[in-house]
């Protein structure tokens, strides 16, 4: 999932991408337009009458240069050095324009692409004039002859562009800066808009996964429209939770209330059995069915407690042998009566920290189930998987359809192919087993074996050894 983050940028199926790209595009167009306009402004130059002070300074510079040139023979590189030197000392920028070939020598730093155009048009100018643009202001021209060459001298101030200007001179740097800055800002904007939606999505997913306590609290405190949506979501979740809770409670309440009449019924059956001298076969059947209701009520109540997380775990350290030995004995007895084979293999020294009664009832339910559906044999074995112990119960019965492997752990679920009362049981055994294992932070699952039969695995934390 993480490697595909760029899928988020696809504007066709991502709101994030759409917002981000649109804002970015708009921002880039604005930046380019502004940049272009300001550059246009910068390159325009204007002319004005020269100021006397500037003209005087120009003449001083010209005299100085000529003086120097007469003393020494110079080339162009030397001239550039001089210009720089004189300019630095007098705090002016100097520019020499070669009248013959339109080349120029300058004594100030910066700006590789200095625009000489406004100066060329001053070649025929006779009087002094001031020419200025956004970045510079020069006075000239003053004709000077330096080593057989005719030059026009200009003096003035050149304001080198600031850092921003310097960057603007490097197109790649400029482009990457503009792209990066505007891109990250737009990303931030799009993210701030999309983030609450993501949080809302998480809350919804958690709820769909069965966590009815899931709420979009991070979103709900916002004051905008998404915040309203978050509050509506929370409201809906409250209602839903209340509804589901009341449904669950009804089942538990009914079972609770049924206990008193059932207790009376059982005692009444006992009285009838006592009183009648000859045996009434129906009475035994009535008693049997009453006992069945009794078991079912117990299961429903246990399950309701496990579901509501009210079951108090009475954990203690117990060895695998202590847990399994009495259970295997019971099952062995039942298997013999049904003429099935039961094998039980486990390492005796393993120690578990569990509520032995709950886990034992879980194992018992699964074992009974296996015994009910097996053809000839059931086996129990244990393997250590890292820090967890897996108890596997395997039968050689018909197994389950693949799509029912998970559903069998739901209350009152009966596998379609075996939907007959003959199999007995309350339909709650596996649900209770799953609840009991889950309350210990363990896992339970069923799988069909390739050689036929069903394997139910229970995974629990084990303490060494």
């Amino acid at each position, binding site marked *: 999932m993480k490697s595909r983050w760029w899928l988020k940028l696809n504007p066709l199926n991502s709101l994030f991408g759409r917002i981000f790209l649109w804002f970015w595009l708009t921002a880039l167009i604005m930046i380019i337009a502004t940049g272009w306009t300001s550059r246009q402004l910068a390159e325009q130059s204007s002319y004005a009458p020269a100021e006397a002070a500037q003209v005087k300074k120009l003449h001083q510079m010209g005299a100085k240069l000529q003086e120097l040139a007469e003393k020494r023979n110079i080339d162009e590189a030397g001239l550039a050095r001089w210009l720089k030197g004189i300019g630095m000392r007098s705090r002016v920028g100097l520019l020499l324009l070669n009248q013959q070939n339109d080349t120029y020598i300058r004594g100030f730093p910066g700006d590789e692409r200095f625009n000489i155009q406004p100066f060329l048009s001053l070649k025929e100018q006779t009087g002094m004039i001031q020419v200025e643009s956004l970045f510079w202001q020069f006075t000239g021209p003053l004709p000077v002859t330096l080593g057989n060459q005719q030059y026009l001298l200009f003096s003035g101030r050149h304001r080198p562009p600031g850092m921003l200007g310097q960057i603007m001179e490097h197109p790649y740097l400029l482009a990457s800066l503009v792209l990066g800055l505007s891109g990250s800002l737009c990303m931030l904007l799009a993210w701030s808009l999309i983030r609450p939606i993501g949080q809302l999505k998480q809350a919804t997913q958690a709820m769909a996964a069965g966590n009815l306590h899931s709420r979009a609290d991070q979103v709900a405190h916002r004051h905008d429209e998404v915040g309203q949506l978050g509050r509506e979501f929370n409201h809906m979740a409250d209602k839903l939770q209340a509804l589901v809770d009341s449904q669950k409670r009804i089942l538990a309440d009914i079972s609770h209330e049924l206990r008193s009449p059932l*207790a009376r019924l059982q*005692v009444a059956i006992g*009285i009838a059995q006592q009183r009648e001298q000859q045996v009434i076969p129906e009475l035994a059947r009535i008693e049997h069915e009453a006992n069945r209701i009794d078991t079912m*009520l117990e299961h429903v109540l246990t399950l309701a*407690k496990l579901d509501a997380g009210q079951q108090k775990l009475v954990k203690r350290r117990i060895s695998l042998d202590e847990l399994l030995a009495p259970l295997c004995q019971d099952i062995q007895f039942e298997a013999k009566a049904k003429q099935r084979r039961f094998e039980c293999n486990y390492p005796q020294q393993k120690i578990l920290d569990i509520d032995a009664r709950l886990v034992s009832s879980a194992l018992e339910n699964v074992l009974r189930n296996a015994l009910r559906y097996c053809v000839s044999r059931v086996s129990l074995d244990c393997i250590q998987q890292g820090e967890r112990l897996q108890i596997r119960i395997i039968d050689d019965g018909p197994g389950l359809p693949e799509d029912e492997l998970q559903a069998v752990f739901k209350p009152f679920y009966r596998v379609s192919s075996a939907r007959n009362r003959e199999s007995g049981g309350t339909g709650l055994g596996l649900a209770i087993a799953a609840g009991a294992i889950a309350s210990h932070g363990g896992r339970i699952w069923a799988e069909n074996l390739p050689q036929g039969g069903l394997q139910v695995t229970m995974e629990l934390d084990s303490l060494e050894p």
Partner: protein
Amino acid sequence: MDKSILLIDDDTELAALLGDYLSPQGYKLTLAHTGKQGLALATSGQHFDVILLDVMLPELDGFEVLKQLRQTHLTPVLMLTAKGDDFDRIFGLELGADDYLPKPFNPRELSARIKAIVRRMELLSVTCQQQQLQIDKLHLDPSTQKASLSGIELELTGTEFGMLHLLMANTGKLVTKQDLSEKVLGRKLSAFDRSIDMHVSNLRRKLASIADQERIRTIRGAGYMLVEIR
């Protein structure tokens, strides 16, 4: 002679039915429908062989009745706990109940439990002729059903007395939980039945309140052993 039973249960219909069921078996039932009424009857001086006590009672609940009763009386108590509520059961035994039965129950199971308790009490009185036991400072006299440590009398329920008796008669030897269950509670030990452990822990607490020495050792997964302290 009829055994007298006090039934404290707010379900009047069930109480009446139980009266009908138990009377042919030789039990005389006295009914109480509130905790207060039941407690008054139980402490009135009238003799009861067994008290059947429902946990869910209006006003004074079953636990409270048991707690107050145990301050003065050691009459055997069979708690009727709510089915599917393991906590009730353990709590009841902690407070000094002799046994428990989750409700609803099969009435045959109830009469079996009552019979076991009554038989145990009879057995204890039959052992009147049995010799007194003395293990270091621990003294037990079956004829008066009294036990004392360092001359201070121990307030034991019938079940606790039975357990101590069995442990003392086998001092230095392992007494399995199966033995304790069958000989004292009068029923087979079922898987993960913690009632034996609860009774032993009550017994330990009462012994420790007089002299804090580990007299009853736990043999993990097997049972208990009483050791002599020199």
